[in-house]
């Protein structure tokens, strides 16, 4: 198990190293750059040249990359020029990551809490109205673009009905104490209940929008897996042994159906980051997805590098955890 874990970590490091090279070259091959973003229409040929030199962007790309690596090894991943100008890019990620984790966690909790029971019920009541409704809903969940759903939810529940806030992480001026960067948790820890509730309210609509695809996928995978397991010999055997329906459902059907569902949840958790870019933009939510969107607009190399590499690491680590959990569940995987 230890060897397996070490091998997978080695693979992770290789992926990150390769990605950092590709990303570095790709970003700098895009038209424009931080100089254009910083100077806007006020630049002149002279000021552009001077700033390009001051920022070291006139050097050959391999020299820039070696410098980047040197700085990265000492913990300096560059300074933002567009998202939060002057701030350390890694600090921006660290500051915004809890926001995205909070959002993605609620989204995945909603998706799993609704997707697994409904998928299971749909399979158990195959062909009924419940099954058909679930299948159609999940199709809609997959088909409707996240940003459209986000706009729709926002327009109905925030703008028209006024039930929930339209944007942001917390109402401006609420005077909340920051501890962990997870606003809901901070409110609970400091017993600032109004702040915790306010943050939760800000999370609901973006989380619902973000949960649409994972819900649909989890629902469909659960339904399919349960249908498969229900046909297995060991389930028939369990019934023949006289086990109660509850035990068969819990221990034999659901548990065995969970393997593909767990894999799916892992993949969807990683994929949530891409959905977060759109959702956070629509809801002006101060997470890494929004940083990524603004970073592209303003060609903020430092922030883009840190956020994309970190997002890739999160994706790989989540899937590593899934694989490791596989290895725990099924020892054959370790070889």
């Amino acid at each position, binding site marked *: 198990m230890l060897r397996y874990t070490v091998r997978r970590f080695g693979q992770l490091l290789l992926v990150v190293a390769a990605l950092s090279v590709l990303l570095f070259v790709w970003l700098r091959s895009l038209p*424009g*750059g*931080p100089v*254009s*973003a*910083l*100077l*806007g*229409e*006020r630049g*002149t*040929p002279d*000021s552009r040249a*001077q*700033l390009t030199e*001051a*920022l*070291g962007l006139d050097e050959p790309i391999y020299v820039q990359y070696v410098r*980047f690596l040197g700085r990265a090894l000492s913990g*300096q991943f*560059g*300074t*933002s020029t*567009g*998202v*939060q*100008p*002057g701030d350390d*890019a890694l600090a921006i990620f660290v500051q*915004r990551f809890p926001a995205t984790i909070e959002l993605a966690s609620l989204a995945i909790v909603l998706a799993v809490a609704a997707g697994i029971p409904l998928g299971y019920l749909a399979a158990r009541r195959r062909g009924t109205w419940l099954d058909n409704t679930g299948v159609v809903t999940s199709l809609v969940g997959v088909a409707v673009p996240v940003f459209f759903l986000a706009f729709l939810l*926002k*327009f109905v529940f*925030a*703008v028209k009905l*006024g039930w929930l*806030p*339209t*944007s*942001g992480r917390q109402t*401006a*001026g609420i*005077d909340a*104490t920051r*501890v*962990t960067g997870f*606003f809901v948790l901070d409110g*609970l*820890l*400091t*017993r*600032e209940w109004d702040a915790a509730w306010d943050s939760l309210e800000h999370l609901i609509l973006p989380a619902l929008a973000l949960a649409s695809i994972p819900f649909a996928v989890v629902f469909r995978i659960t339904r399919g897996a349960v249908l498969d397991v229900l046909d297995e010999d060991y389930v028939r055997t369990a019934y023949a042994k006289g086990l109660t329906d509850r035990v068969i459902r819990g221990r034999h059907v659901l548990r065995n159906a969970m393997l593909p569902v767990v894999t799916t949840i892992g993949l969807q958790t990683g994929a949530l980051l891409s959905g977060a870019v759109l959702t956070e*933009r629509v*809801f*002006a939510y*101060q997470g890494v997805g929004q940083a990524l*969107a603004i970073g592209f*607009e*303003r*060609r903020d190399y*430092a922030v883009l590098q840190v956020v994309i590499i970190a997002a890739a690491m999160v994706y790989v680590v989540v899937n590593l955890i899934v694989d490791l959990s596989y290895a725990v569940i099924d020892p054959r995987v370790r070889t």
Partner: protein
Amino acid sequence: MIRSRLARLRRFAAMAAVATVALSACAASERGEGGGGTGGTLTFGAAGAPSLFDPFYASDGETFRISRQIFEGLVGIEPGTSNLEPELATDWQPSDDGLQWTFALQEGITFHDGTGFDANAVCANFERMFNQTGAGQSDANSYYWIQNFGGFADGAAPSLYESCTAENPTTAIITLTRNTGKFPALLSLPAFSMQSPAAMEQYQANNVQAQGEGFVYSEYATSHPTGTGPFRFTTYDEANGTVELARNEEYWGEPAELDRLIFRVIADETARRQALEAGEIDGYDLPSPADWQGLRDAGFDLQVRDPFNILYLGISQKDNPALRDLRVRQALAHAIDQETLVSSALPDGAEVATQFYPRTVDGWAENVQKYPYDPERARRLLAEAGQPNLTIDFYWPTEVTRPYMPDPQSIFGAIREDLEATGITVNPVSRPWAGGYTETTQVGGAPVFLLGWTGDYNSPDNFIGTFFGSPEGMFHTGQSPWGQELADRLRAADAEPDEQTRIAMYEELNRSLMAEYLPAVPLSHSPPAIVTRENVDGLIPSPLTAEEFAPVSISE
């Protein structure tokens, strides 16, 4: 089996409970006692995060909007106009040669840190700006100093600034190396605001370093901006995207009505409008012209500023030799139906531009040559120039809106149609604003392009001096025999000490620009708007987008 699972669950629950209690024990609320004020809180939607809070190193509107509430300059802007008015200086007088400016200062003013404002503080500020070194001299940091004063104390480039003398606590004398028509108007820029010398020293304000592809600023610039204005800086909650200011209770003038002023960053324009509609913010700047009527109908107070900008069709003479012929440039001007462009693609209140700056700026000339829409004449001019089949690369920007150019695509579309109707072949080239557009246009790489400018202060040099002051700039006027002459004439007008003579020189320059040179085609002046909820009073829209929030009040 079930029992052991239950036991595990209990252990986990117990550990989680212990962790939560431990965390909450070291996470006490840091809330204060609460305001107690009666002026209320106004939350204003900002389109972007401020770069920093030291206005000297800034050049963006979002930073300056905040700076204007915290800091004041020697001279200010009369609300609702672009005219100068006294601020920290009560009066200013130039010497006969225009080189020495004597500023009489207000008495009894203190900075937010309690230190006094006097002539020594004025000189400390100017010396600080003049003595920038290293990364502090970069265009990205000292943009306004370089544009207006030129070089620094190291003498690498000539500087407009020579020295500052504190004659007595209430008299400061600033000596310039040459006369310029833009002084003291340029001192109204937030970049030249007066900041507390003590706070700047304590928090090492000049400590700006290039790091990676950006700059790192001092603690002063990020957390301790200290001015004399009606609001003082309280917090910048980056995690929530809010900047909070509080009323300066010791303010020397009329104190602010509001207890708190919060700027909340909402990058997306639609999200800003929806936040206003939902009552989460009390106002925001630059609503899209497409939303103006809807916002008015919904009962919001939409105020349209007087236009103080210019949109022009840029022409670079660098790569396309045909564009060096005046007749070809005149043909382009005649080919564009500006009246229709302004009425169809620009907001209400936009005007056709007859020259390169709005009427409110000195030197605007009545009788300039005009270029009415006349496709037939355009064709004739092209034929005369030997370019009946003219082909141009026409650049337009994506991913951007500007007050002078709210919807680049529709503006481009309208002009392209007009040009093609005249027989000109247009090769459209679109580039993202920060993704190659400004980069290409600024080095003269775009033969024909859309661009514009919002004035920084009321001076002709801030418009036409910036555009055409260098023969090698984005228009590459140096390719024509008159390029250097135009630059020399602009310099001479700016250096003229006598105001009336200077204005006459600019009027003549504007006539020449439109008749003899036509280095670009001025298209329009567009009025930007600002919108607030109806319970917000006292906000006076500024043509320079230099609104002050001190007189603003909010009712329940």
